[in-house]
C-alpha cells in the first residue's frame, strides 16, 4: 500500500497544475538589506529552485503572483520558520521548514534580496503567437 500511495503521490503531485493562490501582480517595494549575490548561491544550494524554478516563474511560481509572505523581509523569515515541521510522513513536495539553525536570518535576507531581483518576464498573451494559434484552432474541427 505504501508503494501505491507513493506512486499515487508522486504521480499526482507531478500532474497537478500549479496554481498558487492569487497574490499581488506587482513586486513588493519594501527595503532589502541582504546580498543578492550571496542569495543567488543560497537559492541554488538550498534547492529553492527545485520548486520555484530558477527565475521564480515556473513550478510553484511567485513572480507576478507575490504573496503576503514575500511582502517584506520579516514576513519572509516568519514564513520560513513557520512551515510545518510536524508534517505527514508521506513524500511531499510542499514547502519544507527552515529552522534558524539551518538557515540564519542573514541567509534568509540574502535569499530574499535575490528573489527580489526576479522580474516578470513573460510576454503578454497577445504577443505569443503560438498560444493564440492553439486557441484559434480550438474553434475549428481537429486536423487529424
Amino acid at each position, binding site marked *: 500500500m505504501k508503494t501505491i500511495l507513493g506512486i499515487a503521490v508522486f504521480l499526482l503531485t507531478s500532474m497537478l497544475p500549479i496554481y498558487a493562490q492569487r497574490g499581488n501582480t506587482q513586486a513588493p517595494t519594501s527595503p532589502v538589506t541582504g546580498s543578492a549575490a550571496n542569495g543567488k548561491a543560497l537559492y541554488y544550494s538550498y534547492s529553492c529552485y527545485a520548486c520555484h524554478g530558477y527565475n521564480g516563474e515556473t513550478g510553484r511560481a511567485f513572480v507576478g503572483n507575490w504573496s503576503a509572505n514575500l511582502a517584506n523581509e520579516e514576513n519572509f523569515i516568519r514564513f520560513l520558520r513557520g512551515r510545518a515541521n510536524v508534517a505527514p510522513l508521506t513524500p*511531499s513536495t510542499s514547502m519544507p521548514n527552515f529552522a534558524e539553525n539551518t538557515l540564519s536570518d542573514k541567509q534568509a535576507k540574502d535569499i530574499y534580496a535575490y528573489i527580489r531581483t526576479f522580474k516578470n*518576464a513573460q510576454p503578454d498573451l497577445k504577443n505569443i503567437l503560438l498560444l493564440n494559434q492553439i*486557441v484559434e484552432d480550438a474553434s475549428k474541427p481537429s486536423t487529424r
Partner: protein
Amino acid sequence: MAKKNGSLNRRGFLKGAAAGAAASAASLVTNTSPAEAQRGGNAAAPVPAPTQEQIARDAGVVRPPATVRAVQRPGSDLMVQVLKDMGLEYVAGNPGSSFEGLQESFINYGNPPNRMPEFITALHEESAVTMAHGYAKAEGKPMIALLHGTIGVQHAAMSIYQAYYDRTPVLMITGRDEGFIQAHTAHDMSAMVRSFTKWDAQPRTLEESLTALQHAYNEAITPPMGPTLVVLDTEFQKEEARELKVPAYRPPQIAGIDAGKAKEIAEALLDAQNPRTEVRRLRTPQGVKLSVELAELVGASTGTGATTGPMSFPQRHPLCGPGASTAYDYTLGLEIPAAQASIIGPGLATLLARDTANVGFGGIVPVAGGRGARGGAGATNAAAIQADAEASLPLLIEEVKRQLTADKRRVIEERKAKHAEANRKARIEAITQAVETKRNGWDSSPVATARIYAELWPLIKNEDWCLASPSGFSGGHHVQLWDHNKPYSYLGGQGAGGMGYGAPASVGAALAAKSRNRIVINIQTDGDLNYAPGVLWTAVHHKLPMLTIMHNNRAWHQELMFVEYMCGVRGRGTDRGHIGTSLRDPFIDYAKMAAGYGMASEGPISDPSKLAAAFKRGLDSVKRGEPYLIDVITQPR
C-alpha cells in the same frame, strides 16, 4: 522430459564444454593461481580436463560437415511458425545460449527470413520487455521479449512487473538449458517472476512447446491482459521435428455481456433524454472504433481518458466533452464506474492465486480504505457488470440498431448537433483558460516545460503522432495544448511508477509506428533515461521514427523535492538535499551520449527561442527514419 532422442549425448557434450571453457579460461588468466580461479568460478568441484572436441568448440574452429544439415527441420522453426501464424511483428532480445536454436530460426527461417517477427536487438532485458510494453500500449497487441535463462529473466523482472501492473500484454520467451551453464538454468524458471506474470508454462515436449506459445499469447490478450512467459528447453528448440504439424491457431473468445444485458442497456440508452458514455482504456483500437460507433448511434455526449492514457475515445470528436447539458439521465461507463451502468473487465485481483511468493502487491490486493489503482480490482460499484467492455460492444451496437426507430434517429441527430456545438465552445473555453498558465516562464532560461509542448505542437499537429513517454514530470502540458484523437495519441504513465520506462516504451511505440507512417515523441526525463540508455542504439539500429526531447533538469527531481521536504521536517537544512538526488558534477551530456550510440542529436539548449528550429531539424530527421535527440536544459518543474 518426454523426448530426449539422442539429446543426452549432446547434453553431456555441452556440460563438458562448459567445464572445459571454465578450465581454459582459468589457465588463460596469468597472475592468477588455480585456486583463485576456482573461487571465481562455480563450485569447488574438480574441473575435468577438456577433451579436444570441447576445446575446439570453445575456440570456434569446428566446422560442420559441408553438405549435410545436422537437423532438417529444427523444432525452433516450428516455434517461429507458430509465432508467425499469430501475427507477431517483433521479437526483442539480446543473445543467450539458452535460446540459440530459436534465435537461429528467428533470423534464418521463413521466406523472407527475419520478418514477422523481426529480431530487434535490445541491449538489456528490461528494455526488451518495456519495448514490448510500449508497443502493446500503442497497438493493443503483444510483441515478444526474448530473455536468457535465469539471468535474463531476472534483469527483466521490474519491467515484467510494470507491464503486469499496467495490464498490458507481452509474450515472453526464455530458454532453458540443463546442460550448458548451470548458473543459467533453473528447475522452475518462471518461479522468480510468477507472482507478477499472468500465465507461464515450461513444456515437456516440442509439441507442448508449440501449444504453450499459442496459449501464452491468448492468455496475454485475454483480460486482465498481462505478460506471459514460456520456458523453451534447448533440446526442443534443436530437436528434429520430422513430421510434426504446426497446430492451427485459434484466437481466444473474450466474454462480453450477454444478450439480455445488451438489450437492457440499449433500451436505456435509447430511452434516455440525455444519455452519456464514459470511455476509459479499452483493449485495442477496434474497441475505440466501436465506442465511437455506439456514441454516434445513441447521440451520447462522451467523456474520454485519451489525455491520460491509450485506447480511449477521440478527444476532438464532436461528441467528446460535457455536451449540451450535464444533467445526464443515463450514463454508461466502459471500463470505468458510472452512475447507471458500467461494463468493466476483470482486474488483476482475479489473478491473486498466482502471487505464489505472497508478496501482496499494493493496489492489487484490496486494502481496506485503500485507493483504487491502475492494477485495480475490476468492477467496484454495485451497478458494474464484470465483463470486458470492448467485447460487449458489438452485441450492444447490434441491439441499439435493432431498437432504433426513425423518430428516435431524428431526435438523436438534433441532440448530436447541440452536443457538437456545446463541446466546441467548452473546448475553446478550456484552452483559453489553459494558455494563461502555459505562458508562465515563457522566455525563461533554462526552458519552461510548457514551452516545449507549445513549440512542438504546430510542428506535429498535421502528422500522425504518438506521445509515448509519461508526461507527468514534464508538466503534462499536452493534456491541455494538444488534441488526442488516436488510440495511441498518449500512452500514459509507466504503469507501476517504475523509472527506466520512457525511452524503451517509446522505442516499442516506434516499432509500432515504423510500418504505419507514424512518428513517436519521447519527452524524456534525465533520471529515467539513465537506467538503460542503450535503447537509443536500438532506435538507431532499427531506424525508428522517434524524436527524443530531453526534459533535462539534471536531477531525479521528484525525489530531490521529497528529500528536501524531509530535511525540512527534521529541521536539518535543505542544503544537502541534492546528495543522491541530483545529476551534477559532472552534468551529463545527452547529445554526446546519443551520438555515442550513433543517434543524430543536438544540444544542450537552454534558450527557448532556439527550440522551434531544433525541433524542426529533429522531425525532419525522424521522418527520414533517423531518430534524433535534442537535449533541452529545463526548469525543474
